[in-house]
């Protein structure tokens, strides 16, 4: 509670012209010094950049010289610089929780245009901070132990990179992958841009390393079903789906796959372009080298007979009685590397995918050009034999399009250039690229573009209007071909270009269940469905939820090097914590004053973390601080006011409300309440 002994320093930041351009900072500072003196303000200053060392030193100096025991900084959002100013207070010997940062940038100068009204609001916001800080109490951060194990969700290149970095440093990792093998999309690709490295050749050693690493536990054909706990102490339930193959007995010889009589279209690894058995490993280099039996398509499971795999398995590893099992693991940190899904090109009907056989998606083309793929690397039409004479590659399919996704999928330009090169390399076809802009900003990207230009690929700038097999009378000689209708914006004319094959460079989208994943791990996704970073520039692999990180395309479209970098960055953040063995958490927790608790139990059912315990013997309730997450719902519910919420106490908030409302919209003092 406020004692009336508060000596408060108020600091108004100009943030260059970010704040000072709209808010009259000198006036706010003058006003706070005068009008809030009765509240304990002893000094009020404005400064060009409070977050700069000179600004922070100003606070430190005033604490020392003026004996300040409370500090209010009016600057950017507390999510930006709260730590900075708390640090400055701590250096000067003031408990950091006696500092309050109020936002007059994100919440005032950047969103308002009327200077007078913005200045008035800034004053009110500062008053809110001053009134609130009076009620602050010195606090100590909570220290929680950090479990040394890490959960990595997603076994693509981002997840593998993260797992290896942490495992190499000597700490255990649980790597969870939904598919039967790790590898992700990178395992499907033929070449990588711009170096034209063989994708599998650079990926599979990493996969094997992850699969055999003593510190990595693979959970493939598995999904996370439940996450409990908080940073340092998560309890994660992983559902390991039944493989119907005994993991420890299987040698990966592949006989079950060979003998399995049932075949289905392979919609995952071969992107629908090829077939796979029902007892299968998605690809020969799969890690782990243990097949799965696809229950939905298995003859035994549908008709009760077959068991060919069981008959031929040399190690008796087939077990049709297996059931899904749940594994519970304890981890300190989590990395989401859940990747992307390809935009469904069927949604753009005028591009004909799914209707015109010789329109392919980028992923289908990747499989087609891959020597290990369904056509053994031959670039052929859907009939499997005819080599195309003219190939068109359509950029930005489902990206940079307000009907589908506004964002740029980042990899399509380079991928399309790579496709152009590969078509040229494998066939004698004429290749067209239909593009809006060429975005080749990475290392050696533009050089690759120049190379593809020199190879003779035709570039047509314009968004494709239609891909069709409906020929106009003057196109009668093009029977059996497909026509791309496009406005060539450089030539300034409509063109109809007859082709044999069209490749749609489909954009990247978050996995269909991205929202559920977000909910499961307690993190936010953007409206597009990508994971939101803690800070898009300065904390790009952390999320707002402590202990949950993200890497790779889970954060948005990006290429392989960026995904690898993200993985390493997330690993570095986690390793630092593991090595500290504990970390400090905000001491925002609920506590019960037993003397005031009447034992009514209203709060008992409100806690989703079961942090509230009722002592039958004493008829009082207690909050377990280790389980409490500090939401404050019980604090708000207690009819006796017996529960208080540290950092967000009733006194702090009620006082802030009073401060915020001391001025009218125009900045006039509200008339004093009559006695």
């Amino acid at each position: 509670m406020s004692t009336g002994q508060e000596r408060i320093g108020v600091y108004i930041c100009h943030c260059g012209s970010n704040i000072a351009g709209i808010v009259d900072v000198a006036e706010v500072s003058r006003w706070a010094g005068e009008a809030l003196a009765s509240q304990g303000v002893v000094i009020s200053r404005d400064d060009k950049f409070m977050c700069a060392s000179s600004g922070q030193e100003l606070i430190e100096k005033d604490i020392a010289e003026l004996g300040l025991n409370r500090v209010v900084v009016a600057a950017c959002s507390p999510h930006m610089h709260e730590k900075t100013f708390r640090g400055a207070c701590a250096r000067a010997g003031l408990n950091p929780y006696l500092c309050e940062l109020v936002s007059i940038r994100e919440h005032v100068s950047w969103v308002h245009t009327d200077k007078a009204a913005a200045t008035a609001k800034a004053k009110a916001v500062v008053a809110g901070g001053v009134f609130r800080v009076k009620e602050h109490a010195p606090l100590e951060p909570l220290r929680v132990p950090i479990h040394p194990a890490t959960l990595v969700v997603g076994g693509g290149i981002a997840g593998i990179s993260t797992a290896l970095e942490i495992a190499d440093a000597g700490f255990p990792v649980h790597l969870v992958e939904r598919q039967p093998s790790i590898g992700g999309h990178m395992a499907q690709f033929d070449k990588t841009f711009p170096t034209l490295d063989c994708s599998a050749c650079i990926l599979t050693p990493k996969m094997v390393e992850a699969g055999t690493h003593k510190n990595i536990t693979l959970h493939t054909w598995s999904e996370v079903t439940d996450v409990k706990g908080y940073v340092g102490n998560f309890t994660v339930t992983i559902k390991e789906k039944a493989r119907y193959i005994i993991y420890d007995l299987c040698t990966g010889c592949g006989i079950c796959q060979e003998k399995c009589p049932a075949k289905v279209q392979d919609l995952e690894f071969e992107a629908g372009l090829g077939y796979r058995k029902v007892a299968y490993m998605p690809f020969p280099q799969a890690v782990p080298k243990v097949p799965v039996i696809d229950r939905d398509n298995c003859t035994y499971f549908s008709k009760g007979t077959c068991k060919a795999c069981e008959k031929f398995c040399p190690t008796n590893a087939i077990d049709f009685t297996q059931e899904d099992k749940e594994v519970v693991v304890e981890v300190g940190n989590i990395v989401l590397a859940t990747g992307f899904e390809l935009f469904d090109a069927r949604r753009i009907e005028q591009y004909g995918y799914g209707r015109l056989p010789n329109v392919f998606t980028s992923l289908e083309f990747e499989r087609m050009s891959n020597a290990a793929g369904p056509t053994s690397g031959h670039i052929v039409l859907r009939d499997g034999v005819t080599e195309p004479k003219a190939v068109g590659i359509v950029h930005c399919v489902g990206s940079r399009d307000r009907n589908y996704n506004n964002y740029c999928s980042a990899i399509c330009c380079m991928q399309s250039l790579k496709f152009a090169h590969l078509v040229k390399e494998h066939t004698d076809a004429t290749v067209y690229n239909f593009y809006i802009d060429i975005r080749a900003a990475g290392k050696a990207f533009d050089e690759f573009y120049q190379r593809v230009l020199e190879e003779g690929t035709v570039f047509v700038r314009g968004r494709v209007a239609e891909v069709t097999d409906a020929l106009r009378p003057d196109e009668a000689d093009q029977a059996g071909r497909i026509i791309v209708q496009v406005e060539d914006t450089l030539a300034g004319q409509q063109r109809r270009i007859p082709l044999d094959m069209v490749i749609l460079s489909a954009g990247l989208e978050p996995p269909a269940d991205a929202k559920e994943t977000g909910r499961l791990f307690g993190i936010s996704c953007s409206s597009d469905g990508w994971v939101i970073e803690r800070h898009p520039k300065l904390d790009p692999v952390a999320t707002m939820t402590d202990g949950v990180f993200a890497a790779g395309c889970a954060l948005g479209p990006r290429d392989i090097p960026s995904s690898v970098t993200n993985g390493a960055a997330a690993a570095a953040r986690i390793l630092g914590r593991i090595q500290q063995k504990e970390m400090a958490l905000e001491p925002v927790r609920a506590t019960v004053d037993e003397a005031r608790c009447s034992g009514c139990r209203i709060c008992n059912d409100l806690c989703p973390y079961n942090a509230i315990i009722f002592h039958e013997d004493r008829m009082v309730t207690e909050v377990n601080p280790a389980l409490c997450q500090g939401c404050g719902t019980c604090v708000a519910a207690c009819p006796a006011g017996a529960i208080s919420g540290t950092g967000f106490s009733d006194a702090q908030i009620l006082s802030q409300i009073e401060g915020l409302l001391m001025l009218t919209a125009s900045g006039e003092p509200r008339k004093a309440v009559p006695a």
Partner: protein
Amino acid sequence: MSATATSTTAPAAATGFEPVILGFTCNWCSYRASDLAGTARMKYPPNIRLVRLMCSGRLDPAFVLTAFANGADGVMVSGCWPGECHYIEQNIKALRRFLLLRRVVESMGIEPRRLQLVWASAAEGQRFATEITRIVEEVRELGPLGWGRGAEQAPEVAVEAAVAAAEAAESGEGAPAASPEAPPEAQPAEVPA
């Protein structure tokens, strides 16, 4: 849409009345949405002042009543969308309280439209700005919070006045919170005994 088309800085002179709205935000979603609106330089009227809570579940009904008692013309409660609560389901508890609270404020003679609930995820800066604009417009239309007699009254007195006005309304003597012939701000800050 009228809410977005409205000038974000409608001059006081044009309408004569500029409301003050207090907005309660959740640290994880709506406060971040307001950060995002700022970072993206989206514009909304300066009539809103935000209070950060850790969760909409922290919203003690007393906060809302205190806000009205201290001169807020409107109150916005905001939180994560149902199903997206950072604390699993506490926003649902906030929703429950909100619905009750709306009836309570109505019984006190405050138009329920002065108390509004907005769900906004951390990604919805635009939605947050649009909703604020809409709420400011709606409250501006309602005029100053009258408390039956005048905006400048002491809260306890105002509550009594509101109850009295409500009773009067029940016996058929007109709307409880508005006194059309005398705008509240023109009234002297008189305190009935």
